[in-house]
Every structure is written in structure tokens, then in C-alpha cells.
């Protein structure tokens, strides 16, 4: 039964080959067929598959299917299909090939059963996705892509070192519960944390995603961080540290999101915020919390994709993405506006939209386990999400002041991709049981009781009221063309600045030292020559070039002679 054991990344890598060598309608058809065929294949799999072979002394499991990995496998297929539909109009082989390879790498990583296989796909994720950033073909995207690549590869290297330590400590490479014990456990945790955009390791995301292409960002938002969430859920469930890290991730990005002008960067910050909810869930570690984290990852891939797609549509049609330059687009982009609002409602977790049915699980779990202050932080973050992603994104792009830009809705394929996502957001919101049935645990959770619905609706409506009040009173910070300093300031400005100053100081000292030595030497020589006429003559003696020629002749003659003797 080799068909069952065919890993999910294989069809995507073959699809990348197709994409490289075909063009036009044929390429589109083949690219669409790949995720569909692969998804059917995945759907028909038994609940657990283990492909193993021995490598050196270790048992490698390049393909392992269980409930947790299946969940991510499903959503990655959905994301890949939606992303491919969204980019059907593209005629850029680089992007199409790298998107296929990237999606395949994501699948390879979630179905990896050992740490070495995970490492390989971990690095492939970085190398294949960076082309989606570079494909923008601007100076900015080039440098942002470089920074992205360096950080991602660094994460991979730390993972490899951690794996080696882990293998030495535990004598196994199996990728299952690891925990924060030993050097290996900590190093792997840090590697996962970098890809998961933990605070202070988060700027690769807000730096690079907004610089990627219109379609590239849609792919990027789906895979990298979710692979990291999966890895944490697999290896560190119930690690209390994650609760605090996750809570920090939910709160700090929303402040940056409120004052950010680039609307895709606002979404990048809100992506960190959403991943924070998942990290909290993994940290709490109960069945309900893990279910919440995993299902929120599932939903986030879809609604965040939808939001990135709608902003991508705006960028594609207007060539602009800054809130300060947009506004009033609802007039001529009504379909995009409505689809964007559906995404916004989902991420804000309005009842009947997908975010609500998953986020509430994490919140309930936090309360149940007695994390009161964490729960308050999550509640604040929930209100904040609605504020910056739910209202700000649609408001400044489609409403607010009229920018005078009159562009039509984007091409049909883009609209279709957004419509599919929007449909899924609503379907999951209305009928969450479908989603719950594929979750790792059966908790019998029901999000639609009066308490939850009322509390969440109150929270959101009064957040909206605050937005209106602040706007009418003129307290709301206007969208301004600006750059806001974040942690990356440290490595983009401070460290290079310090290094530059340090090196210029070193060069200066070096130059001064050498100049000083040279002048001392000259001084010494002139002193000697002034002191003693004989040495001066000796030092300035000339040899005629004739004598040089003679000596060369002598050497050659000797050489000739020697060769005869020999």
C-alpha cells in the first residue's frame, strides 16, 4: 500500500515541477489539481500512519499521521488551494513554483515524526518562502527578505543544535513531547519560538510580510507561524512559561497595530496577536485549551488569509496600502468591502463567525485553570483585535475620508478565493461541530450558550462604541505616513550604528598607530644618517644594474654546470 505511505508534501513538490515547466491554462489546471487530489488522498487516510526507517543508529519517521498533524494537514490544503486560486492571474513562475514548494514544506514539517526530518522541512520553509518576498522586486523587499532569511535560518540552526543535544541526552530523535528539560529542550524551544514570533523575536514577521508580493503574503500568513504552533503543541503542551509568553504576544502588538499606517503591517501585528491566543492555549495544556489552540490556528489560517487577500486586492488595484492614502473604496469595490468585513468579524470573534467558536475555548480554559490575570489580558486583547483589525482595517481602507481613488473590484479569481474563505468563516461559525469533530480531543464544548454570546457581544459593541467616541472627539490617532520603531530597531539601527562607530574608531586608532610608527622610523633613520656619514653612505649605496645582470649570468652558468655534472 504505497499510496497510503506517500507523504503529503510529495504531490506539492511534483506540482512545483509542473508549475516550472508549463504555462497558461495548463499550469493553472495542474496547480489547482494538486491540492485537491492531495486533500482527497489525505481525507482517505486511516487515522494513524507511521513510515519508519533506520538511519545510522536512529529511527527516522519521515511521515507520521495522527489527529494533531491531520488537523494542520487539512487546513494547509485549504490554504494552499485558496492561495492558488487567488494567484491564478499571476504570470510569475518564480512565485508559483516557490508557493508550491513552500506549501509542500509546511506539510512536510507537520507530518514529520522525527526531529531531523522536521529540521529539513524547517529550513525548506525558509528557503522556499523568501522568494515570495523577493518576487516583489524592490530594494525594500530585497533587504527585508534578507533579514527574514537570516532569522529563519538561524532558527533552523538552533533547532539542529538542539536536536543534537536532545539526541545525545535521550538517545532518540522522535518528535513528541520534549519539555523544558536539558539544553536540547531549551534550544528547540527557542528555535520554535523564533518561528512562532515570540516577543522580541517577532520582527521578522512584521518586517517581511508586508514587503512580500500581493499573493505571496497570503501564502506566508498561512504556513510558517502555524507550523511553529503545531510544533509547540506537539512538544511543549502544558509548559506554563508559554502562558505568559502567549499573553504578552496577544497584548503588545495591538498597540503597534493601532498606530501603524501600512495596513498589511497592521495585519502582521494582528497575526502575532492571534498566534498569542494559540500559544496561551498550548501553555495551559488541558484538553479544552489544546483544542482551542489548534482550532484557532485552523480558523486563523482562513480568516487571516481572507484579510490579507482583501488588503492584497486593495494593493493590487490601487497600488497603495497605506491607510493615509486610502479611503472611500467601498464605492467602487463593494464586493471586496463585504468580504473584508466578514474576515474582520471573524477575527474579532463575533458570534456566528469562525473566530468565536475557537477563541472562546482558550478563554474558558484560562478561567477554568485559574489564570485570572491572563484571562483579563486575553479579554483586553480580544477587544483590541476588534479595534485594530476588525474596525481599523475596513474603516481606513474602504470608508473614512474619501481618497478619490475609484478602482473596480479585483479580478474574478481573487474574488472567488476571498468568497471561499468568507464562506468557510461563516460556515464554521454557524456549524462549529464540523470543526470540532476533527479536533484532537473530544470535550463536548458548546460555544453558543447565552453567557458567552452575551459577554462577547457586549465586549465588542462597546469596543466599537469606544472607537466611535474617540473618532468623534478627535482622540483617534490619524493615519500618518510614518515608520514606528519596534524591536528590530535594535538590529537594524543600533547594532549596525555601534558596530560602525566601533570599527571607525578601530581604523582611526590603527591609522594613528601606524602613522606614529612610520614617523618615528623616519625620524630614527634621519637621526642615524645625520649622526654618522659612513653609515649614511652605507645605507644609500647604489649598485649598478650591470652588476645585477652579471650575477644572474653567473647563477645561470652555475645551474647549467650542475645539470651537466648530474
Amino acid at each position: 500500500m504505497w499510496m497510503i505511505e506517500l507523504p503529503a508534501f510529495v504531490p506539492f513538490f511534483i506540482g512545483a515541477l509542473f508549475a516550472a515547466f508549463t504555462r497558461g491554462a495548463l499550469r493553472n489546471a495542474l496547480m489547482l489539481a494538486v491540492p485537491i487530489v492531495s486533500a482527497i488522498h489525505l481525507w482517505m487516510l486511516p487515522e494513524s500512519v507511521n513510515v519508519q526507517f533506520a538511519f545510522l543508529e536512529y529511527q527516522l519517521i519521515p511521515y507520521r499521521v495522527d489527529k494533531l498533524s491531520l488537523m494542520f494537514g487539512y487546513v494547509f490544503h485549504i490554504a494552499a488551494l485558496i492561495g492558488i486560486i487567488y494567484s491564478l492571474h499571476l504570470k510569475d513562475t518564480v512565485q508559483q513554483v516557490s508557493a508550491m514548494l513552500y506549501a509542500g514544506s509546511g506539510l512536510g514539517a507537520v507530518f514529520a515524526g522525527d526531529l531531523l526530518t522536521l529540521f529539513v522541512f524547517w529550513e525548506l520553509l525558509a528557503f522556499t518562502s523568501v522568494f515570495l518576498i523577493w518576487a516583489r522586486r524592490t530594494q525594500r523587499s530585497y533587504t527585508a527578505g534578507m533579514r527574514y532569511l537570516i532569522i529563519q535560518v538561524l532558527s533552523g540552526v538552533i533547532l539542529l543544535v538542539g536536536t543534537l543535544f536532545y539526541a545525545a541526552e535521550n538517545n532518540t530523535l522522535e518528535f513528541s513531547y520534549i519539555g523544558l528539560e536539558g539544553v536540547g529542550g531549551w534550544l528547540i524551544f527557542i528555535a520554535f519560538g523564533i518561528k512562532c514570533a515570540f516577543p522580541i523575536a517577532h520582527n521578522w514577521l512584521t518586517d517581511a510580510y508586508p514587503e512580500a508580493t500581493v499573493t505571496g503574503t497570503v501564502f506566508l500568513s498561512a504556513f510558517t507561524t502555524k507550523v511553529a504552533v503545531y510544533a509547540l503543541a506537539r512538544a511543549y503542551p502544558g509548559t506554563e512559561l508559554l502562558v505568559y509568553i502567549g499573553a504578552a504576544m496577544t497584548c503588545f502588538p495591538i498597540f503597534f497595530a493601532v498606530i501603524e499606517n501600512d495596513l498589511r503591517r497592521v495585519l502582521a501585528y494582528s497575526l502575532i496577536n492571534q498566534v498569542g491566543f494559540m500559544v496561551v492555549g498550548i501553555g495551559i495544556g488541558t484538553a479544552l485549551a489544546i483544542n482551542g489552540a489548534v482550532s484557532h490556528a485552523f480558523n486563523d489560517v482562513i480568516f487571516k488569509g481572507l484579510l490579507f487577500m482583501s488588503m492584497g486586492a486593495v494593493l493590487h488595484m490601487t497600488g497603495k496600502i497605506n491607510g493615509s492614502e486610502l479611503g472611500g473604496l467601498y464605492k467602487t469595490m463593494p464586493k471586496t468591502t463585504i468580504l473584508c468585513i466578514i474576515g474582520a468579524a471573524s477575527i474579532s470573534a463575533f458570534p456566528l463567525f469562525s473566530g468565536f467558536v475557537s477563541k472562546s475555548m482558550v478563554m474558558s480554559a484560562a478561567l477554568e485553570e485559574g489564570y485570572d490575570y491572563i484571562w483579563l489580558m486575553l479579554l483586553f486583547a480580544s477587544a483590541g483585535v476588534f479595534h485594530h483589525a476588525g474596525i481599523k482595517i475596513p474603516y481606513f481602507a474602504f470608508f473614512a475620508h474619501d481618497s478619490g481613488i475609484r478602482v473596480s473590484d479585483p479580478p474574478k479569481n481573487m474574488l472567488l478565493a476571498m468568497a471561499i474563505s468568507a464562506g468557510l468563516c461563516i460556515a464554521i461559525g454557524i456549524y462549529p461541530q464540523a470543526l470540532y469533530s476533527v479536533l484532537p480531543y473530544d470535550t463536548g464544548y458548546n460555544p453558543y450558550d447565552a453567557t458567552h454570546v452575551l459577554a462577547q457581544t457586549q465586549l465588542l459593541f462597546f469596543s466599537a462604541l469606544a472607537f466611535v467616541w474617540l473618532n468623534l472627539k478627535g482622540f483617534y490617532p490619524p493615519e500618518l505616513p510614518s515608520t514606528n520603531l519596534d524591536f528590530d530597531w535594535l538590529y537594524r539601527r543600533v547594532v549596525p550604528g555601534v558596530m560602525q562607530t566601533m570599527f571607525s574608531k578601530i581604523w582611526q586608532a590603527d591609522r594613528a598607530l601606524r602613522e606614529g610608527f612610520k614617523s618615528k622610523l623616519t625620524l630614527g633613520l634621519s637621526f642615524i644618517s645625520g649622526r654618522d656619514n659612513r653609515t649614511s653612505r652605507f645605507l644609500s649605496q647604489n649598485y649598478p644594474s650591470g652588476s645585477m645582470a652579471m650575477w644572474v649570468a653567473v647563477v645561470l652558468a652555475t645551474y647549467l654546470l650542475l645539470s651537466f655534472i648530474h
Partner: protein
Amino acid sequence: MKAEKKYLFDDPKNTKRVLLFLYISCALLVILDFVIHRHIAHDWENVWAFYPIYGFVGCSILVFVATWMRTFLMRDENYYDKQDSTKVDAHHVDD
């Protein structure tokens, strides 16, 4: 020049209607608090209109703090681009 088509929110009355809808909904939601019996999972939820107050105050604080953060975090749009170009210049001088 042709006069442009009137769109939905070109009429200030429609904006007012949306706002009115929001105000009424908010009022209704607070009233519902008295009607619907909620399961209380935490003492804080017993505070009168806990969620509405938390949402409103939370968001206001969020915006005020974020606005204040602008005073020391905001630079102009090409901040990093300029940095890159000065670095290149400096490099040439050193060479």
C-alpha cells in the same frame, strides 16, 4: 464634467443611521444583562456591566497609550531606507 454618482455614505443621514443602530444595540445589550441569567465563572463578572465597561475602557486606554507611544516611536516613512543609503556612503568613504 459629469456629476459623480451618490454613494451610500455620501449622505450624512446614512452615517447617522449606522451610529444610531450602534447606540441602540449597546443600550439593548446592557439591558439584556438584567434579563439573561449568566453563569458566573469569576467574581469580576459580577461587577455591573463588566464586559461593556471593560471593552470601552480597555479600548480607550489602548488608543491613548498607542497615541502616546507615537511621541517616541514615530519616525518618518523612509527612516530605514535613509539609514541604508547613509551606510553605503560611509562605506565608500572608509574604502
